[in-house]
Structures are given as structure tokens and as C-alpha cells.
């Protein structure tokens, strides 16, 4: 049974939330699939290469629900090959690429281009979330039928306005026709001035435009009412406020097809980090209060929030070199996703199993993917993680072209040392 593409990963601590398995086991990989784990590995399996993963964790590949890859349209910021490599270096094997005004994904050709660029690069894989409306202008529906045909996993209106609720309703119904899940950012734009921060004493002191938490809760309440009407599944992207949690929980308890995620940075940073005018903490939705952050952490632990994503938004350095209000929002976040989420484990918010689940099999379900599991027959997307390494983040050493992270100088425990996509090693710093 010797095969040039057969690989055995020995003695690692395998964590697979989908089957709730956590223990030392060997994993046999052949071609691009996991063929067996532990005692199920056939005696005659003769790997061409063997990796000793003693003292390492073997994790399912992370599925990141949101990243802006900037290509095509904003090649001055970065390119797909740089970003997919940065993702792979952080244990991420699949990225959902979000549409944005400067790189809208509203036609089949764009989807094919993004996918082929990602394939050519050969690092992390890319799933595409298409535009809900043409050019994200919020007026006309995008060609959702074609988007589905070329493999989009969902549609989104990004951070952009939609004309009115009637248009949103029709967009939801049309997306539902093609079984395209909606990824909606709950933002009531008339209450959320661009360039602003969370409304409170601090926004008043800094003289920045106030964005109240109600800008999020109002949008959530409206969309929930439309989900009741249309029965279309909706995924809420990037929650930021405590007041959103009960709305979400009620809707879920009613059995509505609603899910939600949160960006990892929202579980750590607060409005206080925006002072004094730190453009690296300029995000949409804005960073909110300590109470909001704690409520989000609780909701993640309780399973009310279904997944944690990076919301990776790489920028060229100039995009952040302006007075706060004029800077581009977003954080370059691939390389802090897993470290931050594991920090929630050391801060006793999550168990290890929960933490990995929120990054792998849970987000996989949200894009109807079978990935995110370490089980026989599944594609071998996985990473090796060294829990012993202590390291300090240096923004300038990020592999992403976007060095815009507010976490520079933070210390982390544990690091991804090797990543496999379809059974191939795409990143390795293992000793």
C-alpha cells in the first residue's frame, strides 16, 4: 500500500470538536484525504513520510467566515497569494472572501477569478461570498443564480446600505430561491456615521461621531422580522453590543433560521482602546464597552453566538496614517485569530474543545461545508500547533501585507507550526 502521497502524523494530540474526540492518536492521510485515525489505521498502511507530532496538537483547519482579500480591485493593499499564505501560517485552511464596494463580487467572472488566483497560489482555500446587490449599491439584485452556479457559499451586502426594507425582503427571498445563505451586517446606517466610535462619554471627550449600540439592535430587530416573514436563513456578521444578544437568543428560541458570529478582536478590545485616536482600533462595528465585551464573551461560551472569525482587513500603511475619522476601518487579523481565541481558554471563558469548535466545525456548518472535521473520509485540511511556544506579536513581522494590528506587543502562548491543505503541507516552521 506504499504510496508517494501517503503521510502519517504520529503521536499528536488530536482535537476534533465534531466528534468530541480529544486524545493522542495517529492520523493517516492518503492523496488529499484522511483515511483513518488511531486504531482504525490499517496495519498495512505504509506512509511515504512520517511526521512525529509528539507534544503538538493536531487541529482541524480553521474556517474563517470573513476576510477581505482586496483582489481584484485593490491590489495596492495586497494580493490573494500573500493573504492566503498568511492565513495558512495561522492554521486557517479556508477563507470566506467578503464583497466590498471597491472589490464587489457581483458576477460569475469575479468569483472564478478569485478562486483561480487562490488555487494558483496553493495555500489556504477560498470560498466566496457574493454581493447581495449589484456593486453593493443596495438598489438592484445581483445575479444570485449565477453566483450560486459558480460556487458562492452565500451573499452579503457588506457594510453598505440597502435602499429600503422592501428591497431587502426581495433580496432575501431571491437568495432563498437559490439556497444562498445571507450574511448580513446589522447596521442601521442613519445611526452610524462613518469615522465614528461607540457613543458615550469617551466619544464626547474625543469629539468623534457617536455610533450608538441601537444602530445594531434596530437592524437586528428589523432583519429578524423579515426572517419571520420570508423564512430565509440569515447569518448576522460581527456582533458588537450586549443588547443584541437577547434579541438573537429569542429569535433562536423561536426556531428561526438565524445564526451569528463575532470578530475575535471584539472579544478583547473596547472603546478605551480607541483613545487617543488609535486608528488601528478603528473598526466597523465600533469597539464598545467592557460590559458589551463581557456579554459577547458569555454569548460565545453559551453558544448563542455560533462562530468566531477574524474579519481580516489588510490595509496599506497610508490607509491608517490620517486623523482617526479619515482612516480606513479594519484590522489585519488572520495571524491573531487562533492565538486570541485560545487566550479565551486561558482566561477561562471557553474550554479548548469549544474554542476549536467555534473556529472549525461550527463555521463550516454555516457555509454548508463538510470541512472542519478530523475524521476518516474528510479532506485533510489540518494544522499542527505547538502549545509550548511563547511569542510576542510584532506588527511589522506579520506575513499579511496588512500590518495594521492593534495587538503588536501582545504575548501569546502557542503557535501554528505546520498547515496542510488537501493533504499537502502549505506552511511549515516545524523544527
Amino acid at each position, binding site marked *: 500500500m506504499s504510496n508517494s502521497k501517503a503521510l502519517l502524523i504520529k503521536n499528536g494530540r488530536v482535537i476534533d470538536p465534531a466528534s468530541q474526540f480529544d486524545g493522542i492518536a495517529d492520523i493517516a492521510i492518503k492523496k488529499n484525504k484522511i483515511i483513518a485515525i488511531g486504531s482504525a489505521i490499517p496495519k498495512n498502511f505504509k506512509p*511515504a513520510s512520517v*511526521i512525529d507530532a509528539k507534544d503538538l496538537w493536531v487541529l482541524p483547519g480553521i474556517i474563517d467566515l470573513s476576510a477581505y482579500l482586496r483582489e481584484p480591485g485593490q491590489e495596492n493593499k495586497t494580493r490573494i497569494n500573500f493573504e492566503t499564505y498568511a492565513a495558512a501560517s495561522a492554521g486557517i485552511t479556508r477563507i470566506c472572501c467578503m464583497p466590498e464596494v471597491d472589490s464587489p463580487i457581483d458576477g460569475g467572472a469575479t468569483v472564478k477569478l478569485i478562486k483561480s488566483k487562490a488555487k494558483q497560489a*496553493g495555500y489556504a482555500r477560498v470560498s466566496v461570498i457574493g454581493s447581495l446587490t449589484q456593486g453593493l449599491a443596495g438598489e438592484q439584485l445581483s445575479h444570485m443564480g449565477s453566483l450560486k452556479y459558480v460556487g458562492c457559499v452565500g451573499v452579503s451586502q457588506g457594510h453598505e446600505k440597502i435602499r429600503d426594507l422592501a428591497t431587502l425582503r426581495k433580496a432575501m427571498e431571491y437568495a432563498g430561491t437559490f439556497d444562498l445563505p445571507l450574511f448580513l451586517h446589522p447596521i442601521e446606517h442613519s445611526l452610524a456615521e462613518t469615522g465614528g466610535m461607540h457613543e458615550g*462619554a469617551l*466619544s464626547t471627550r474625543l*469629539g468623534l461621531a*457617536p455610533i450608538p449600540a441601537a444602530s445594531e439592535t434596530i437592524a437586528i430587530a428589523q432583519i429578524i422580522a423579515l426572517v419571520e416573514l420570508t423564512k430565509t436563513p440569515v447569518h448576522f456578521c460581527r456582533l458588537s453590543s450586549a443588547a443584541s444578544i437577547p434579541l438573537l437568543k429569542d429569535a433562536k428560541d423561536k426556531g428561526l433560521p438565524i445564526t451569528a458570529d463575532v470578530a475575535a478582536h471584539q472579544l478583547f478590545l473596547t472603546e478605551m482602546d480607541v483613545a487617543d485616536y488609535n486608528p*488601528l482600533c478603528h473598526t466597523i462595528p465600533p469597539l464598545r464597552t467592557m460590559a458589551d465585551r463581557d456579554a459577547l464573551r458569555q454569548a460565545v461560551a453559551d453558544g448563542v453566538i455560533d462562530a468566531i472569525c477574524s474579519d481580516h482587513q489588510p490595509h496599506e*500603511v497610508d490607509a491608517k496614517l490620517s486623523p482617526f475619522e479619515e482612516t480606513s476601518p479594519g484590522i489585519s487579523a488572520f495571524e491573531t485569530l487562533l492565538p486570541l481565541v485560545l487566550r479565551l481558554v486561558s482566561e477561562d471563558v471557553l474550554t479548548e474543545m469549544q474554542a476549536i469548535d467555534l473556529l472549525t466545525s461550527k463555521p463550516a456548518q454555516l457555509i454548508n461545508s463538510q470541512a472542519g472535521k478530523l475524521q476518516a473520509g474528510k479532506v485533510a485540511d489540518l494544522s499542527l500547533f505547538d502549545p509550548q511556544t511563547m511569542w510576542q506579536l510584532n506588527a511589522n513581522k506579520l506575513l499579511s501585507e496588512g500590518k495594521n494590528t492593534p495587538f503588536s506587543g501582545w504575548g501569546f502562548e502557542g503557535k501554528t507550526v505546520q498547515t496542510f491543505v488537501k493533504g499537502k503541507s502549505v506552511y511549515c516552521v516545524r523544527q
Partner: protein
Amino acid sequence: MSKNNSTDSFPDERTEPPLAQQPVKDSSPGPLPSSMQLTSDGKLKHFLTIEGLPPLLLEEILDRAEQFVSLPNKAKVQAPLLRGKTVMNLFFENSTRTRTTFELAAKRLSADLVNLDIRNSATTKGESLLDTIRNLEAMGCDMFVVRHSSSSAAHFIARYCAPHISVINAGDGRHAHPTQAMLDMLTIRQFKGRDFTPLKVAIIGDIKHSRVARSQIHALTTLCAGEIRLIGPQTLMPEGIEKMGVTSYTNIEKGLDDIDVIITLRLQHERMDSAMLPSIREFYARYGLTQERLELAKEDAIVMHPGPANRGVEIDSRVADGPQSVILQQVTNGIAVRMAVMSMVMSSQAATRVES
């Protein structure tokens, strides 16, 4: 490396980064340090906001301004404190009064002055603020006086400009307008004495969008004013303002009771369009400073306005021109305060240069 463990069994396996990374520029973005305004020995290096400055420094500005006010007119034109220095007035936003008084202040200190109306030039051609600043630096400049519509613009320039340059904030977004606040403090001191502790001060109008109000509040709290009241409708009152050490009133009659100093703010006409207020007439009816309302305050209360005043909107003409109005004194003080601040930041520079 793992690749070496196997006999190259994965010919298409990739572990190398895609391409060399771009070099990183040294001026990387980050928070703006709040201690930027002072030199290591506590002298004023930039004047960006009143918040965080020690009371003694504010007193020093006022004392020095007082000297400039009392100079005979001829001497004012001759003061050589800024001789050979180049001051650039960078106004990214409209202004007549502030810009003119800065201009006069610089000239009276014998500085070379350049006025740049940036709205009509560089930035409209797509140049970034940082590039504009770097270009002006390259032309040789010692001081920027900056007005900009974005909060923190002056801080930003101070953070990224060459170390020998001082920045004076002439108004940034809704954040701060420190020289205006200091000239108001000087006016209050001239009429009410050096001790602010017994004073009750009321600020009336659009607090929410006002950088002047924010700087006045910081100045008044730093100088230990007895009580600060803000008066206006809820739409013009920002969230959490009480945390700055003030009380807010929506009823002007209650708010003006027993007040020593009344400051009215300018009401922008845009506020009607954005549904902050129903009409100018209603604002005047509810919050305009009329003679009857003025009588609710102390008998010797003074009336101030940062200008330009909308007569019949926030203030009645009879009050603006009346015996209790000190509005023109404010304008005169404006030049003295700006002379004081400019000379102080320049002398702190001279000191740091001698040290180094």
C-alpha cells in the same frame, strides 16, 4: 524542517512564502500619545488641547497674554520674539476671525507668515494630509497653526511632523479649540478676577458639535471654576457630557439662575436640516439670550460669544451690544492669547535646542 524528513514525496508541496515582503515604513500608525504637548521639563511644545495641562501652565498663558494686552500699541508691532521664524497658517476649513487674529499675532511677534488655504489646493488634488505636511516642512517652517474638520487632526500633525516644529490647534472637528477657550478665560479673569472658584458659568447652545464648548469646559475645570452648566435642548447635548464635570439644563430659565458668566455658542444653520431643531425661531424662543433672561443671572454677569454671532438666533442684538457684553474684548484678547501661546511654544523650542 519536515520537508527533509521525507524523500521529497510531495513535489508540489509549498512551504515557502510567496514573494519577498514589502519594506515597512518607519512611521507606522498607532495611538497618539496624550503627553505630546509638553517637553520633558514641562514647557509647552505644542498647543493641541487644554485637557491634561496643569493649572499653572494655563495661568502662565494668561499672565503672558495679559502682558501683551497691556503693551502700548507701538510696542505690540515691534515684539521680536518670533523674528526669523516661519509660521504657516494651515486652514483646511473656513475661518475669518481665528485666522486673522493668528495672522496679526504672528506679525506682531515679527514672524514670517504664510497663509495656506488648503481647501482650494493640495488635498482637493488628492494629496494626503501627511504629504502636505512633509512638503511644507521641506520648505522650512517652524510652526503650524492648524484648523481641520477632523477631530485629532492637529494631534496627528504634531505626532508625525519634524521634531523642531510646533503645532497650534486652531480647531479640530468637534474636539478642541484651545486658544479660543484661553481667550475666554482671559476675558473672564479680566472681569471677574483671578480666582475662578466662586464663579458659576453657563454655556448655552449647540454643545454637541462644539469644540469651543469642550475646550472651555476643560479650561474651566482646570482653573477650578465653581460650577459649570450647559444649557440646550437634548438634541444638542452629547452623550456622557456630565462626566466632564458639568451639569446640563434643558430649561434656560433654571440654568441662568445666579450665573456669573454666560457664554453663548454659535448655532450652525445645518442643524435645522439634520433635524436637530425645528427652526431658528423656536431656538430663539426657547434658548435665545434675551434681556429678560439675562436678568435671571447675577446683576454683574458678563455675556460672551466666540463669534461670529447670529443675532436674533442665539443672542438678542440688545444683549450683544449691551453693557454686560464683553464680546469685543474677547476679540482683542484673542490676539494677545495667540501671541502668548506662540511665544511660549517657540521659547520651549529654543530651550530644547540649546540642551541638545
